[in-house]
């Protein structure tokens, strides 16, 4: 880890090297001329390379070493070099600090550089909040467009249309004169079979239209805008590059099509895509600041903060957002990012609050307002809900991954538009008859979380009121009326339908999130259980388990609480979130009363789900796509050594290396064109195989092309040297090409006897792409991140060929 210390090690005097060689008994030829010059002369060189040396002013660098555009950037679908990026940032910071002593302008530059991070967070929060407001208001409106239109102004949805109406009755709060359903508009009738069929038909038609628009826009303009986005963002934050994934067009299309997808009645949510939208905002705003535009590692810090802002506006939970970013999405999360993420999340939540999409200063549609206490014995049904959540989560992940694999490998994947339309049609046709699937999922959750009081007149709150036993404002447990029983079986049907249809919906080629459907499944299950327990307590209040605390006339069971706990359990079972889930739920309820039930359910569901399958949905999708994501949470416990994993193996050709000063331009170009490795080690000579450094393929290609065009005299027979001084050339030889500035002089090495546990740990902690393996000081092989991932997969008996990228 300590770069300077390691580099100094390579400058040991030849006597100690030879001592070691004598002891081990190997016969190696150590000629003095091969050694690099001694330490003091090289201190200048020592400091001039720090990952490309692009930004370091060093008077000893000659004019040929000015930065070439393109060197130090990465190709698409490659991993960044974290160490290089971080040291580049440190150099930049050092330079600015040193220069700031020179003039006032430089001092101002330094202050503004330090301040730029906060300004960027502020802008990200504002933009993410505004976009979330746009999405919320538009989705709310378009969902109701399937059912009817407001005559007062077409931009009002159902609730806002009847907002000021005088004719609203207690029983039918939804009906008002200004809101016309489609049958009312087209045939001026609102009751009757024909009106019903017409409404049905218009509902499915609008749903199909929205879905068609969504998938066409995604296909034509931004194919990266489909799906949830969280698996890919996790991979990007761990160092992978997917160009265009967080670009302008992806942002625009994702925002627009998210509204369309949610409004089409499909069983998906908008929380996951909101994280993608917020990260796109973060990435786009990074381009305004040089500090973040040029450095991939710093940019990923900003993206972590942007992800926190995304979750914050999705749930109205800033703290939950930061914890979600920390737990689920980010890979390296320095403490400095914690504070900035919180700031971005707060600004985003505040912006959304001032836009006020839901009309009463709430950020989310399903806000829990009751504070009734719960009893310790209720932990039994809560744990039961946790078990249900875990089971459902594991079942859902298996089903969804199997379906996505089928989509990836078979003919099904060739008809994305048709698939979306068919699923939308099926969802629409099945959803319309049942009132609980016809309404949008957020509204359903909101209704399920609601505690029934005297003021509610919905079907779910149709309890038999006995006014003689009412004492003041506290409502006792009441027997269920007819409406509640109807609601129960309708909800059961809705539960089955949602469980099945979400498996086929998540992962389609439209933006789709997973949080809301899982919460809906859990809320329905919870409410069913809650009403069941409530009625059991009412009719059998003399049983020993109830008699102690739930006497007649007491308000002991709150079905709304069961719904909330069920929602948390199912969400935890699918995503395997722990802390962030509990914090999000407690921020939704606004109080600490329900923390114990929530934690009980979340922990139970995670344990049950982990017992069945190790991975959450996002990790499963990462593995399905073969992204090079090194899981940070799992321990590697096998006893293999580095030499078991390194390449080349026994049957492979020997390692492709470059020598430090004996290869010509033509040799190097042939080597590059014949092999496809992303980097090559540089050794002193082929006989000694002593390591000098590591050079990347992309940098080599760009530098050689640039040299051929711009430098005089570079031809195919010019010698390339990575040393500081040109090797002695015969007369009339073409000038040599110095490529020392693209050489990484401090590649990480391990010996061949290093246990793989340590190697995996090094890769994880430092974010390496490759690591060289030495034996007795000589270069033996190389281990890349892909090799590590394949090895882990092999050890876990999974398919090692599914790792696609490096």
């Amino acid at each position, binding site marked *: 880890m300590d770069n300077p210390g390691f580099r100094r090690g390579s400058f040991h005097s030849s006597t100690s090297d030879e001592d070691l060689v004598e002891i081990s008994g190997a016969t190696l030829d150590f000629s003095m001329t091969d050694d690099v010059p001694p330490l003091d002369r090289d201190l200048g060189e020592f400091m001039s390379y720090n990952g490309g040396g692009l930004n370091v002013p060093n008077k000893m660098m000659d004019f040929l070493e000015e930065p070439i555009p393109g060197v130090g950037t990465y190709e*698409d679908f490659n991993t960044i070099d974290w160490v290089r990026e971080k040291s580049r940032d440190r150099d930049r910071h050092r330079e600015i600090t040193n220069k700031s002593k020179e003039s006032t302008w430089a001092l101002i530059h330094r202050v503004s550089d330090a301040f730029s991070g906060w300004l960027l967070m502020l802008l990200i929060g*504002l*933009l993410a909040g*505004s976009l979330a*407001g*746009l999405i919320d*208001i538009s989705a709310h*409106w378009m969902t109701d467009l399937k059912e009817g239109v407001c005559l007062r*102004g077409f*931009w*009002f949805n159902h609730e*806002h249309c009847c*907002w*000021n*109406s*005088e004719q*609203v*009755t*207690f*029983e039918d*709060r939804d009906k008002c004169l200004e809101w016309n359903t489609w049958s009312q508009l087209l045939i001026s009738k609102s009751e009757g079979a024909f009106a019903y069929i017409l409404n049905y038909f218009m509902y499915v038609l609008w749903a199909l239209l929205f879905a068609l*628009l969504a998938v*066409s*826009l995604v*296909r*034509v*303009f*931004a*194919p*990266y805008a*489909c*799906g949830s986005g969280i698996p*890919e963002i996790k991979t990007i934050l761990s160092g992978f590059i997917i*160009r*265009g994934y967080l*670009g*302008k*067009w992806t942002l*625009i299309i994702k925002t*627009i099509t998210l*509204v369309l997808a949610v409004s089409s009645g499909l069983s998906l949510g908008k929380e996951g895509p909101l994280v993608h939208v917020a990260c796109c905002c973060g990435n786009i705003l990074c381009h305004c600041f040089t500090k973040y535009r040029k450095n991939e590692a710093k940019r990923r810090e900003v993206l972590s903060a942007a992800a926190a802002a995304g979750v914050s506006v999705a749930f109205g939970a800033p703290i939950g957002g930061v914890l979600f970013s920390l737990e689920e999405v980010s890979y390296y999360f320095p403490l400095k990012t914690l504070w900035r993420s919180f700031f971005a999340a707060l600004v985003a939540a505040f*912006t959304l609050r001032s*836009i*006020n999409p839901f*009309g*009463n*200063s709430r950020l989310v549609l399903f806000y829990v307002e009751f504070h009734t206490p719960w009893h310790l014995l209720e932990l039994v049904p809560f744990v039961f809900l946790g078990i249900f959540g875990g089971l459902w989560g594991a079942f859902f992940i298996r089903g969804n991954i199997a379906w996505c*694999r089928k*989509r*990836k490998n078979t003919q099904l*994947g060739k008809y*994305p538009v048709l698939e979306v339309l068919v699923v939308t049609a099926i969802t629409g046709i099945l959803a319309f008859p049942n009132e609980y699937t016809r309404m949008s999922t957020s509204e359903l959750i909101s209704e399920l979380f609601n505690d029934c009081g*005297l*003021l509610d*007149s919905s079907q779910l709150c149709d309890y038999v009121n006995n006014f003689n036993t009412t004492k003041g404002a506290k409502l006792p447990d009441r027997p269920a009326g007819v409406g509640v029983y109807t609601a129960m079986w309708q909800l059961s049907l809705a539960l089955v339908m949602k469980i099945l249809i979400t498996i086929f919906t998540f*992962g389609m*080629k439209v933006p789709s999130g997973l949080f809301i459907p899982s919460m809906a499944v859990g809320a329905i299950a919870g409410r069913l259980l809650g009403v069941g327990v409530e009625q059991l307590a009412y009719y059998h209040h003399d049983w020993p388990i109830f008699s102690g605390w739930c006497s007649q006339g007491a308000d002991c069971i709150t079905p709304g609480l069961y719904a909330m706990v069920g929602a948390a359990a199912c969400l935890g079972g699918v995503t395997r979130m722990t802390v962030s889930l509990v914090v999000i739920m407690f921020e939704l309820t606004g109080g600490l009363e329900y923390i114990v039930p929530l934690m009980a359910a979340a922990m139970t569901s995670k344990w049950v789900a982990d017992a069945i399958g190790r991975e959450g949905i996002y990790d499963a999708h990462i593995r*399905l*796509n073969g992204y090079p994501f090194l899981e940070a949470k799992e321990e590697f416990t096998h006893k293999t050594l580095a030499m078991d994993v390194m390449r080349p193996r026994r049957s492979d050709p020997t390692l492709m290396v470059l020598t430090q000063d004996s290869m010509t331009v033509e040799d190097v170009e042939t080597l590059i064109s014949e092999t496809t490795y992303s980097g090559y080690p540089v050794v002193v000579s082929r006989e000694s195989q002593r390591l000098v450094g590591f050079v990347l393929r992309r940098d080599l290609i760009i530098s050689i092309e640039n040299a051929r065009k711009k430098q005089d005299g570079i031809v195919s027979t010019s010698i390339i040297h990575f040393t500081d001084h040109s090797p002695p050339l015969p007369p009339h030889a073409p000038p040599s090409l110095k490529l020392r500035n693209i050489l990484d002089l401090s590649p990480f090495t391990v010996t061949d006897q290093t246990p793989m546990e340590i190697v995996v740990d090094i890769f994880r902690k430092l974010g390496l792409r490759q690591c060289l393996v030495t034996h007795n000081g000589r270069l033996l092989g190389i281990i890349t991140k892909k090799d590590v991932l394949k090895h882990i997969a092999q050890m876990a008996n999974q398919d090692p060929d599914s790792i*696609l990228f490096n």
Partner: protein
Amino acid sequence: MLGLEVYFTETLLRVRPVLTGLLLVQLANTAKNFEDVRCKCICPPYKEHSGYIYNKNITQKDCNCLHGVEHIPVPGPDVEAYFLRCECKYEERSSVTIKITIIIYLSILGLLLLYIVYLIFVEPILKRHLFGHSQLLQSDDDVGDHQPFANAHDVQARCHSHANVLNKVEYQRKSVFDRHVVLS
């Protein structure tokens, strides 16, 4: 005509921050439109009288059962018991924000749809007129993240930059839809 698509995307990209700014400005003058505030009083069924919902436009400090309930359906001595069950809430919204947001959304959607129509119908005709043979979509594999529409001034350069963006989308489309490499 080719300038149209440059103009499109330029406007799209430049107008977005302006529109966001507009949105925020609108919030600043939160419309205290008289029809954007209400005092909603819900009174549940009492004895033989059915429940009522009253929506009135009164100020926040006056929003209680006394002022919020318009005509009291119950006789004198029961009024207090009736009022005990009623609940009044003061709510505010901004209809201007809603109107502007929906209009912004629909206009962006409309622009995108027009652009699709342009790409499908108009552009092949133009390509045939201007180039004769289709050799537009040749580009090296440098798929970077810039190449805006904005930098082009002459037709050919515009076409190349446009082709670059289309090529990027084509590359993304191949990765996602054809090879199923990303986002399956």
